[in-house]
């Protein structure tokens, strides 16, 4: 197991390199190259000799006048924990152990790590609320469907969940905001954002201040999160429910269930003590796939609801072609995705004693 784990972790390195090379290559292949919009926009406003000066400044600062390979290696050197120190004037110093540096966003002029630090909690909150919801609803409805296999309930759940799964998030988001957060229809929810004006100053829990009730920070935050979480989770639980149903049905046909029935065990005991636990195995395998897809889904949800998370950040970064930010985002996104893949394999081996990797 340990050997396997070490091997997997070592194999992460070429994959991560591949991800960054792919993204870097795509950005470099763009018309105008890396930083093209930056040089044109920022320089274009000034014109003349100043434009040239600004151009030179940016080229030197981000190394844009170097060949792409050198630019990439420089970026790689910056993010690696062991590498050359970079001096003030851009020349390379001695090899040392250093803190990984994701660089500075070209358009926002802030360190990429700062931007990520601001954006990551928003996406994490969204996903941490959604994932348990997705799993609970998915598992429960999967069990109901499997117990009523072939009945109207099963067909109904199956079809409606396929329909739910097919509803595009862009549509449900627009409809929810349009009808439930609009003065012309029902104005129950905020149109976007994470906090109302003033709620940051309010107390955490609902409280009675100056003869009036104040909702407080927590209620306000929940109120803002309801619609985004709904949008993010319905597709996931439809998918999981189908999977759960299939895996319960597979297990119900297994030999050990026949043995249990022959012993005269109660059907409920068979379902919940034997079959249920074995069926959860297949959910572990998709857990890894769900994390990247929720991150991808949060791109849409965050854009629609105007939440300042990783998804919104990546749409902004990509459309402005902000090289450092895009590279940083894909690096972190890829790291999360790959780690969850390794985690899945390890969990799978831990949960299922039949699986070994030796």
């Amino acid at each position: 197991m340990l050997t396997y784990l070490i091997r997997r972790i070592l194999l992460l390195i070429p994959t991560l390199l591949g991800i960054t090379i792919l993204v870097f290559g795509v950005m470099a292949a763009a018309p105008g190259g890396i930083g093209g919009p930056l040089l044109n926009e920022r320089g274009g406003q000034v014109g003349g000799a100043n434009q040239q000066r600004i151009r030179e400044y940016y080229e030197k600062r981000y190394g844009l006048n170097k060949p792409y390979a050198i630019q990439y290696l420089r970026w790689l050197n910056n993010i690696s924990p062991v590498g050359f120190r970079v001096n003030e004037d851009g020349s390379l110093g001695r090899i040392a152990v250093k803190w990984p540096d994701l660089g500075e966003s070209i358009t926002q002029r802030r360190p990429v790590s700062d931007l990520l630090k601001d954006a990551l909690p928003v996406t994490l909150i969204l996903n941490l609320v959604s994932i348990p919801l997705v799993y609970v609803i998915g598992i429960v409805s999967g069990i109901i469907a499997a117990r009523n296999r072939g009945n109207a309930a099963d067909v109904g759940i199956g079809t409606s969940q396929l329909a739910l799964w097919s509803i595009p998030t862009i549509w449900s988001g627009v409809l929810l905001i349009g009808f439930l957060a609009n003065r012309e229809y029902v104005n129950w929810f905020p149109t976007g954002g994470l906090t109302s004006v003033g709620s940051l100053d309010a107390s955490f829990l609902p409280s009675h201040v100056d003869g009036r009730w104040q909702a407080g920070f927590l209620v306000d935050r929940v109120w803002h999160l309801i619609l985004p979480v709904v949008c993010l989770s319905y597709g996931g639980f439809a998918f999981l429910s189908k999977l759960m149903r299939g895996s319960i049905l597979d297990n119900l046909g297994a030999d050990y269930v026949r043995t249990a029935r022959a012993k005269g065990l109660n059907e409920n005991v068979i379902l919940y003590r034997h079959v249920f636990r074995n069926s959860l195995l297949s959910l572990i395998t998709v857990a890894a796939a769900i994390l990247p897809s929720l991150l991808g889904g949060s791109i849409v949800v965050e854009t629609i609801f105007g939440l300042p998370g990783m998804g919104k950040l990546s749409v902004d970064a990509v459309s402005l072609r902000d090289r450092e930010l895009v590279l940083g985002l894909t690096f972190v996104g890829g790291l999360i995705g790959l780690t969850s893949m390794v985690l899945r394999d390890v969990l799978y081996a831990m949960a299922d004693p039949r699986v070994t990797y030796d």
Partner: protein
Amino acid sequence: MTKLSASEPIGNPGKPGPGETDSTRDPLTVVRRSLVRQVARDVLVRWGAQIGIVWVGLLVVLAVLAPVLANSHPLLMKSKDGELSSPWVKHLSTADCTLLVTAVAFVIIVLTRWRASTKVWLLLAVIVVTAITSSIFVKQRFTSPDTYRDRLKSGEIEWAARAPIPYSPDDRQLDDPTARLRSPAGRHWMGTTATGADLASNMIHACRIALSIGFISTGIAVVIGVVIGGMMGYYAGVVDLLGMRLVEIFSAIPTLLLLLCFVAVFTPNLYMMMAIIGLTSWEGYAVFTRAEFLSLRQRDFVQSAIASGVPLRSVLFRHMLPNGITPVLISASFGVASAILAESTLSFLGIGLGVDEASWGKLLADARSSGGTFYWWLAVFPGVAIFLTVFAYNLIGEALRDALDPKVLKN
């Protein structure tokens, strides 16, 4: 050898699928049927597949007939000096011509009694020939759609037979300043868009993009995935290790993020978009093909094909592929749905197709103005279209899986 390998491991072809009620057949005689026929039969009896196919068929009809159904140029008109003309024919684009000719050829070819392979080749030939000739000979003309309305009003045109929706998708009705963002009423069945174009007309013309994006990008993804996955499964070892890294690269980053990077950087046209969606969604097919090939390469019929000196290309694609393609086919049907979803999401986010292409996702994006007003018709109609199309492909995929998956048969 090919015959044998294609029919042997697929199993008893006469076995009835679930839901199939064929009581007239003698259970003892084994009916030999080709895999395609058998699958088509098993799939078509399912109501989910029927609904899905009806909807997709409707989209195909709308896509082909778009220039007849929604066009600013009159189908037939008579000017004051008694001259009859059909302006819509002159304003057909290359794509319009190719689609119309192909559709007519398709109907004719289907009605003939030739062999299936002849029909397919003939149809492909027709498509290629019309595409080439029409791209050479069809010249894009431009007449402002407003002129017809002006001339009708002034009496220069005596009468005109117009399309059911007398607006082209790019007809922004510049002669009518109040035309923008009107709710459904009168001539505009589904209202108008932010630029003053007719929504129904845009919806009909957008069927083409949805259909072509779905099929072609999934086709590209399947080809890439099958080739890479086949190599990985056949050679195993180092090739497998390297290929697996490639698969991991593409599956670790959320597909949407990868798509965003590609699309934002290349500002694509329709064809680029198809290629990009295909290039970023092949990894699932590669994994399936790899798993199938890993087990197939040990089988006797593959070993004997290799031993008898059959070229590698033939071993991989004629002997192994037909036996390992099933999971790929099933997921390809879901892949069509997600390709359509990807295109509309990108267009919704404003980094998809250019302004001239009508796309459901782009129409949906205009439903909310920055001021907070909600134009419900721009949300409901395009959204329903995307949803129904994705749902239709998912239903077909589900039916295909039920028909092909041996596990489901066992249950």
